[in-house]
């Protein structure tokens, strides 16, 4: 079932929808193309799956293209991903050649569509080099970087910088993620879709059914972490925190992750997590397919508390999802988690497994505090992190770039 812009009025407010329609008027008929590296799995694909139809709904000629990589290519771009987040790793010369070859082929295949577009948004490093292989282009090109590149491993940034510098602008999820580049650097926080299967309200019976299917005891507290099996999400640290808290509390732990075609390290991390979990019947390590959105929704709703104990994080949309469902979050002091988790208001920031264990005990012994946090958390997301706000900021950036970059832009 397709979802129209007006369907968001209940979650975001009708006035917000009216404003989007007004703001988008000067952009009607303009060709806007997004390019990323995967159609399913991961936050970027989830956002584009909804953002692009809404842009169409507003009268733009919006499209979404995906580059076609090889396993070697995704191996190289995963190394990029890690290195840009500070891991001292670098692709080989052969790997860099694979990266360039895939981007050249993407430029050849997508060229006719991209060269004529008014705005092209290239998401993350994987397709970033398309621009250098498409010298004849007429629109504005924006590099949308979803990851934390604040402290990149220098050799990899030295390779990537000349690739992204020629863009007309770049966009980051947080000011702290930006790198000096010779073009305007916009800050746009990402968002969640309140009408998606992952976030829409569910019947309690469905929540209970999913929990029962995964063997959760309905009478005991459940702590859930939802994230890819990625070392930066620190699933082993979550297990350590659980074991400390378990000495005092009859808790159950769910570590639930999906797979993404552009993440070749997931299997190795999953194996390490399963080994660390051992035979504890209260630890549930679940690998779900990328389209298991309702199931994840149900598990988040079943959670008493949600963890996101990342060591490095982009924005941390799983935190936003949990807050939207009224769950306090115990989060690592990393990336966008810091913007969302406010001590004593929406959860707690922690630096260690011990800290996470203490906050689990603190919250599970204070149901009244949890109820107050739930209310604040949901309001916080409604006012700041719904898809409609994200869409508005994309429109605003396009209008600002189109106007030449002045501080104040008047649109008819």
């Amino acid at each position, binding site marked *: 079932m397709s979802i129209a812009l007006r369907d968001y009025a209940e979650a975001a407010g009708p006035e917000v929808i009216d404003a989007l329609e007004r703001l988008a008027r000067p952009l009607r008929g303009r060709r806007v193309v997004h390019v990323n590296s995967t159609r399913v799995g991961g936050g970027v694909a989830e956002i584009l799956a909804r953002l692009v139809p809404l842009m169409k709904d507003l009268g733009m000629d919006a499209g979404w293209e995906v580059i076609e990589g090889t396993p070697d290519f995704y191996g190289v771009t995963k190394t990029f991903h890690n290195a840009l987040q500070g891991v001292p790793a670098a692709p080989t010369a052969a790997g860099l050649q694979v990266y360039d070859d895939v981007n050249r082929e993407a430029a050849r295949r997508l060229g006719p569509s991209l060269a004529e577009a008014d705005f092209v948004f290239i998401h993350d490093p994987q397709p970033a080099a398309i621009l250098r292989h498409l010298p004849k282009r007429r629109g504005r090109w924006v590099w949308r970087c979803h990851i934390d590149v604040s402290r990149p491993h220098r050799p990899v940034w030295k390779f990537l910088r000349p690739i992204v510098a020629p863009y007309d602008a770049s966009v980051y999820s947080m*000011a702290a993620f930006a790198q000096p580049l010779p073009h305007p650097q916009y800050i746009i926080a990402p968002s969640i879709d309140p009408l998606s299967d992952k976030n829409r309200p569910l019947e309690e019976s469905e929540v209970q059914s999913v929990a029962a299917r995964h063997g959760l005891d309905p009478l005991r507290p459940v702590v859930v972490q939802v994230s890819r099996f990625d070392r930066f999400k620190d699933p082993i640290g979550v297990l350590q925190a659980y074991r400390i808290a378990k000495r005092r509390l009859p808790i159950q732990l769910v570590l639930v992750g999906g797979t993404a075609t552009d993440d070749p390290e997931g299997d190795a991390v999953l194996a390490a997590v399963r080994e660390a979990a051992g035979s504890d019947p209260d630890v549930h390590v679940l690998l779900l397919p990328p389209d298991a959105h309702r199931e994840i929704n149900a598990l988040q709703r079943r959670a008493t508390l949600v963890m996101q104990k990342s060591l490095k994080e982009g924005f941390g949309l799983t935190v936003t999802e949990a807050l939207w469902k009224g769950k306090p979050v115990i989060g690592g002091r990393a990336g966008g988690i810091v913007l*969302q988790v406010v001590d004593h208001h929406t959860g707690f920031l922690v630096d260690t497994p011990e800290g996470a264990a203490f906050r689990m005990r603190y919250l599970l012994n204070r149901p009244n505090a949890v109820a107050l946090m739930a209310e604040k958390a949901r309001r916080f997301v409604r006012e700041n992190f719904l898809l409609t706000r994200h869409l508005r*900021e994309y429109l605003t950036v396009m209008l*600002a770039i189109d106007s030449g970059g002045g501080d*104040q832009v008047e649109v*008819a």
Partner: protein
Amino acid sequence: MSSPEPFRFRDCSLTIVSLGRVARNLRELRAELAAVPVGSLQHHFYDAFLRPSFDDREYRNDFAAWTRRMLRDAPLAERLSVVDPLDCDDFEDVRDRLIEVVEERLAEDPRHADVPDGMEFRFLRSQLVYFDTGVRATTIRELKERLPKTTTGSVFYHFVEARFRSPQKRDDYSSWLLGFGDEGRALADRLARVDFQLWSLPETRARIAGCLDGTPEGLS
């Protein structure tokens, strides 16, 4: 007396641009305050109201918030929190006052350490896109009915930013209400008591609506 022109509800949308300038300690903050464009100061005082952020904040201007949360300098945060652009001639005057407060603190206690990595003050500026909503009010009653249904961007435009466009530093709603004689003046007097610097924009909108309706929330 003729009725004023209809009130035209306008709206604005913010996009944030990184200046790439950071301060890791109080001396760097002082140096950057002297160097950044005034638009950045305006962003960190007011445009930030439109920025996605947790709204139950202790301090509303970013300088006071950062010195309290990251530098952990409570006296400085308190002094910065009362620097009020509405008391200043313009944002160059705001800049001078901020620098004066910071220099005074540096003279009192020069031992200011760097904040941890990732906790730096990052200077930003705004690009604001303005547009007409097409909504009009021709009577006070229509203003009362329609204002609660406007966006926070519209409230920002008419109630916050308007003060920097108006020689009297007056918000747009009050300016328009003053064209309605005693009733309008009474309502404008009530609106003057809504201290937008203490509230998030949704809260400010609720208080303005309360003032126009005469409900306790608006008068508190």
